[in-house]
């Protein structure tokens, strides 16, 4: 009996220091790496390595028909994209222009509808449910089918007949422009689901005490929006802006991405050139994001302590 106890305590004493040899910090560090390791492995395999390979491929000639046949081309692919290829730059420009128009529309519309859906009035939950429909069926494909079938401005403005009015008073060119705009607008409104969700969450996190205070100080609803809601929401606006830009630039419907896919898989099979186009696009998007974040960050107001 005594021996057993002694052995146990000996075992405990032996186990103790060994466990203690690894300090708590080291243990925490190992745990941290344990938790993030799946992501790191995934990052290396599914992102970092392909990204590097894509950069390498972009300096080569590679046909999809024979994947082992690499030919070094230097910067010829990039030269081709900017100097020879007559289809790439117009598409890039078109994508930039469209997104420049779409992103503000998406932001303003989603903020507007989030504020509406945040009103404390009866039945607002039902409206929220409808507003989130684009999240569920905003599938690019379904929507594309719909607009191909003409559920665009034509259906929506039937009661008002904006196009006809414009046609009569301004002319056919303007009418075509208006109908284009209406179609585009409807298409864009269908991309506001996530943004509205984020704005709603942001609006919910604004403390009602501040509104109360503003009201007691005599601020009108209009003042409260500009002086309380907007500054407190500005970090959320930045998050949303980044999300919207990334989302619309990686939307498979934009013509650059369609072109890249065409070059690589449908018809062209020029993998090296497609990789070069992909990298040019990536750098352009990254530059835009960098500029936007740098400019917007100046206007973002961080309330309280946000060091964590």
């Amino acid at each position, binding site marked *: 009996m005594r021996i057993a106890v002694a052995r146990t305590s000996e075992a405990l004493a032996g186990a103790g220091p060994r466990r203690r040899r690894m300090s708590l910090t080291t243990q925490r560090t190992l745990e941290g790496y344990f938790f993030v390791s799946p992501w790191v492995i995934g990052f290396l395999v599914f992102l970092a390595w392909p990204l590097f390979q894509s950069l390498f491929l972009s300096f080569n000639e590679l046909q999809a028909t024979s994947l082992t046949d690499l030919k070094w081309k230097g910067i010829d692919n990039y030269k081709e994209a900017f100097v020879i290829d007559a289809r790439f730059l117009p598409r890039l420009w078109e994508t930039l222009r469209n997104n420049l128009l779409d992103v503000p529309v998406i932001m303003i519309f989603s903020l507007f509808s989030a504020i509406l859906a945040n009103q404390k009035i009866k039945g607002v939950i039902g409206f929220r449910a409808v507003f989130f429909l684009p999240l569920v069926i905003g599938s690019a494909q*379904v929507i594309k089918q719909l607009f191909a079938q003409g559920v665009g401005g034509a259906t929506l403005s039937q009661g008002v007949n904006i196009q006809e009015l414009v046609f009569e008073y301004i002319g056919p060119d303007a009418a075509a422009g208006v109908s284009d705009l209406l179609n585009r607008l409807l298409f864009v409104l269908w991309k506001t689901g996530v943004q509205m969700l984020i704005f709603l969450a942001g609006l919910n996190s604004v403390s009602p005490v501040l509104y109360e205070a503003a009201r007691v100080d005599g601020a009108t609803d209009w003042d409260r929006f500009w002086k309380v809601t907007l500054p407190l929401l500005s970090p959320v606006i930045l998050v949303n802006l980044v999300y919207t830009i990334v989302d619309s630039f990686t939307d498979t419907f934009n013509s650059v991405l369609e072109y890249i896919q065409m070059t*690589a898989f449908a018809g062209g099979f020029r993998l090296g050139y497609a990789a070069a186009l*992909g990298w040019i696009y990536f750098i352009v998007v990254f530059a835009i994001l960098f500029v936007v974040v740098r400019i917007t960050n100046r206007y973002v107001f961080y309330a309280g302590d946000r060091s964590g």
Partner: protein
Amino acid sequence: MASVTSTITPFLIARPKWYRDPQIVRRRSITFLQRAFTYLVLIDIAFVFLVPIFYIMATSLKTSQDLSDPTIVWIPSGFFWINYPLAFFSMAYVKSLSNSLYISLGSAVGQTVSCAFVGYGFARIRFPGRDALFALVLFTFLVPPQTIIVPLFILYKNLGWINTYNPFVVPSFFGHGLKGALFVVVFRQFFKTLPWELEEAARIDGASAFGTWWRIMVPLAMPAVVVVFLFSVVWHWNDFFEPFIYLNRMEYFTLPMRLSVLSPSLDTATGGQASELFNEALVMAAVFLVIVPPLSIYLFTQRFFVESIDRTGLVE
């Protein structure tokens, strides 16, 4: 004056219930108009999102005469159900549905589990290099999938994964795949809002890091789990770009892919005789069949979408 009122504001907030602020009384008189206007705008916006759905349903029930008749827009002359079985069979609905379910459920399970795991590591454990790694997570979100599609295609081809669902399901178990970075961020933000006490108690009682995560933190993170799972299902369901790259045989196609090849396949089935007008009703029936599964999931779970946003900590 303003500064005086703002200094007494805290006292006003604590005023008794029976106290009626004269300003509130004054505001009541204009609320009716305001409320009417708010409803009007709400209905307008709802209209934008509901019209296409009504349009799909109305058009799918039309006969070819109805389609060419300009006076019939919303209400067909009768219920012409035949488009539904036609669409059902020409999309090979059962097969494509099970393909879609396989991809979306498999990837959603993978992303939910792995992103919850990784997100917890980023939120709660301090280790060297954590912030740099998290910056990498944000960076992955910025890379357009098209930039890396070529090497990935080659990789999957060498692995023999073309025409299988591995290219969608396997990366999702590593916290990648469609918008994986976003889900990691969501979980990280959520775990950051949870109290430390429970976790510390578990650790003191001798639970391992994994046990703490699985038995204490995951049950607490249910709102985030539900939201991430639903989003992942819906996004994979609607995804279009990657399936078309990695799947090139019809029997592996998902529902939205089938939808996009529907018109050509109809033309070959009828020897190019299918008229445009007949097509439209049929395509709408097909569209409806494609959106029915996510729509019905949404009907049952919209409570989570609508209400649990506040609790996901999506915004700190």
